[in-house]
């Protein structure tokens, strides 16, 4: 496929990297030639200097042959305008715009239907949604859902206190009646897709696929905290804080936001009378203590400065039992974060790039079944995909005991959701037409069910 990206910032670059790795041809348009040339050195793209809303520039960049058009410049207005122009020049073109302002994002439906934009991506809202999910399950460091929410995949840190430490996956499976599958383990920086004899140790980060309805009980069984965070202390009153507060207030959680800018405080207080808006420096240790950091259920540093967020998160981990979720803008700090033991980190820019990459892959119309959902775990080293099975005689109605021999290495069929039922597949199960098949693999770029075969 040919992709056109407007905006060569962190998201644009990350997205270009993903698309190129997936085998697509990518042109990137930006007014900043320096940023373009740097990007071109790092990723195999075609740099096109110029204004993304200029039809001539777009034509030069190959608008006529493009399959997908993605506008991720820092300006909402430019993104919308560029998509509008591209969509009017090529009616069959898929267009994706990044829109961050809460004012516009309320009008997503209108933008999509009237302006002909295929998808509106709001990274801040997506990040807030991700934080919100984590606040419901503070014991987990990441959680995602598949198959309209019926299946979940979550990542957790194995602790000596948990009763799965030192047990093999088979033992864990025989001890519980829960339908769960440990589908990836990260140990000392190495990612493995484990077999049944794999023994878990304290210090492992494991990713588990489970039925959403059973997840809570399973966590309880492990001896983990299964209740949601009741109170939340947020530093930095930016857009993510805005969306997150909106979600938390709706379910009557106690929210306290520390913001250094008085005008922003006034805005927030106007919008959220139920929340406590504190005017002050949220990176000041004493000020945080004063605001009850020690006693809060969850601490979420969301300031615009990564370093400050990381420092206050580390401090919070030291003095309190709070669930800490750190927002990090930079996309290259992923591995550093692992060494810091910060509970959970949320990368809005990666969420954005992932969500676009998923959209692109879902629209590549693969053989045997298309990608419905895509998540990338453990520093992008593991991909977890939900694929919808369609007619493919090489796959359908073959017992997995047999099919399993023909699968790629480092790939497992984690679960199947059929008509709402969650199945952890054994040798007798088969893939049927219309099934949601969830696979976990260290191969990247799978875009159709057929590709799971070796």
């Amino acid at each position, binding site marked *: 496929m040919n992709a056109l990206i407007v905006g060569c910032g962190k998201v644009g670059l990350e997205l270009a990297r993903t698309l190129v790795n997936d085998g697509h041809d990518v042109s990137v348009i930006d007014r900043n030639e320096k940023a373009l040339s740097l990007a071109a050195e790092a990723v195999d793209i075609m740099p096109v200097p110029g204004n993304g809303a200029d039809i001539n520039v777009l034509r030069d960049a190959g608008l006529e042959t493009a399959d997908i058009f993605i506008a991720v410049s820092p300006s909402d207005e430019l993104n919308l305008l560029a998509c509008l122009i591209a969509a009017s020049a090529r009616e069959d073109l898929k267009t994706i715009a990044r829109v961050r302002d809460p004012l516009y994002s309320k009008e997503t439906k209108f933008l999509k239907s009237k302006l002909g934009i295929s998808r509106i991506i709001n990274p801040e809202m997506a990040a807030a949604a991700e934080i919100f999910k984590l606040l419901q399950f503070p014991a987990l460091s990441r959680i995602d859902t598949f198959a309209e929410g019926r299946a979940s995949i979550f990542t957790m840190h194995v602790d000596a206190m948990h009763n799965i430490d030192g047990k093999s996956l088979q033992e864990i499976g025989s001890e519980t009646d829960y339908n769960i599958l440990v589908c990836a383990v990260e140990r000392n920086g190495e990612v493995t897709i484990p077999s049944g004899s794999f023994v878990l140790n304290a210090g492992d980060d494991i990713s588990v696929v489970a039925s959403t309805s059973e997840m809570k009980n399973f966590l309880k069984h492990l001896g983990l905290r299964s209740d949601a965070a009741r*109170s939340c*202390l947020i530093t930095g009153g930016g857009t993510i804080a805005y969306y997150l507060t909106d979600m938390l207030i709706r379910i009557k959680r*106690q929210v*306290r936001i520390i913001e250094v800018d008085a005008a922003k405080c006034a805005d927030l207080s106007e919008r959220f009378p139920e929340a406590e808006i504190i005017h002050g420096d949220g990176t000041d240790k004493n000020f945080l*203590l*004063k605001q*009850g950091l*020690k*006693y*809060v*259920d969850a601490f979420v540093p969301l300031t615009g400065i990564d370093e400050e967020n990381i420092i206050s998160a580390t401090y919070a981990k030291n003095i309190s039992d709070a669930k800490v979720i750190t927002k990090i803008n930079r996309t290259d700090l992923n591995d550093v974060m692992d060494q810091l033991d910060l509970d959970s980190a949320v990368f809005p820019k990666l969420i954005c790039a992932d969500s676009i990459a998923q959209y692109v892959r879902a629209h590549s119309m693969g053989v045997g079944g298309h990608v419905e959902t895509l998540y990338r775990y453990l520093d992008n080293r593991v991909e977890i995909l939900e694929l919808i099975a369609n007619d493919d005689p090489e796959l359908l109605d073959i017992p997995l005991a047999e099919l399993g021999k023909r699968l790629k290495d480092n790939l497992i069929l984690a679960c199947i959701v059929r008509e709402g039922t969650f199945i952890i597949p054994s040798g007798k199960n088969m893939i049927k037409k219309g099934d949601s098949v969830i696979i976990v693999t260290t191969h990247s770029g799978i875009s159709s069910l057929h590709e799971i075969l070796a």
Partner: protein
Amino acid sequence: MEIAIVFYVVGMALLIEGALMIVPAACALIYGESLMPFFLTALICFGIGIIFTRKRPESGFLFSREGYVATGLTWVALAFTGMLPFLFSGATDSLADAVFETVSGYTTTGSSIFTSVEDLPKGILMWRSFMHWIGGMGILVFMLAIVPFSGGTQMNIMKAESPGPSISKILPRAQDSARVLYQIYTVMTIALIATLIALRMPVFDAICISFGAAGTGGFSVLNTGCATYTIAQQIVITIGMIAFGVNFSFYYFLLIKKLRLAFSMEEVRAYILIILAAIALISIDLIYTGVYTSGPIAVKDAAFHVGSIITTTGYATTDCNLWPNLSQGILILLMFIGACAGSTGGGIKVSRVLLMAKAYKRELAVALHPNIVKRVHMDGKTADEAVVRNTGVYIFIYFVIFTISVLIVSLDGFDWLTTFTSVAATYNNIGPGFGVVGTMGNFSSLSDLSKWVLSLDMLIGRLEIFPIMLLFAKNTWRRF
């Protein structure tokens, strides 16, 4: 909330209270009375105090919430422990009475439920007056002066306990500030005691009356109040009361020889002006209506009562129920104005009245020129807008609580003057009101319900509303 530090502060205050029992106990010893009431009280205070202070909290952080809660709880704890000598000595056997008398003592109100104080043991009389002295400057300020706290957050206690719209330290260190305050306070009290003794007042009376005047309390040791003292003694008491109603920063400025700063304090000037005007008006009224025939005696009594009421002390030399309406009205008005901020007196405080008068002037200017930008000035500096706003709300809440209290006390079925002034006199920490609770009467005939309500009013009035009201707020007790 750091509940550990809150209990630590309460425990520390109880330890101090236990130690302070030495004063009435010494008095009881001299007069050959039983030491048991004070010994037992000290024992109980030490017991609870030691349990609460057993472990010093690691983080000594007293943020504003902890400061308020610690102050509110400490005063409630003091009310329920300070009353023990009254019960143990058999002075009263009613819990409501004992608590009322104790709260009245600590809050420097001086309203009494005892019909004849001359019948009480001397030790108990000394304890009543000594509570005034400690409560006047504040037991927590006393604690700050003697117990070392780390962390620099202890100012939050001082802010919660000291009266006035904005409290600032007079020295860089909170402990030094507390010490200087208590030094000035002690020296002035000793000077007053010495002067009264020199004027041939009995030593016991001189000490008790001075404690009452210093703390602006008002418990007297004679059934006739101050009426039987000589004119010279009454004049000294008048000057003493008025002096303790002045902002203590004034004395500090005098002490460090910053006379210009001291005399440019608008609040002190307004305070003196109000006193002089009130004395003049009442004197003229008393002579004009023929209540007094002698001019100088009228001025002396007018000055004594104006000083007694505006500083919220509550001593009396005569029965004010016999005074004409205008004079009574002026005294009731003075009840609400009260003394200066940063003094030992109660009431709304002159600085708040001054601030609101200035804010009113500003609103007039805004009405004339809607786009005008105008700041409120105080002592040559602009007043913080937050303080102006807070003062407005403070005065509103002040009267809301006042009104509710009046409604509850009205259940007792007294006349309106009695009902109204019994609340005004206790809420503003004055002591006597008019009617049944007048200068020659007492609060013994009120129902228990009224006594509990008035006890609460005294605490609310002394701690300036927020420390007590916060104890009833749900959010105060949330961990986060």
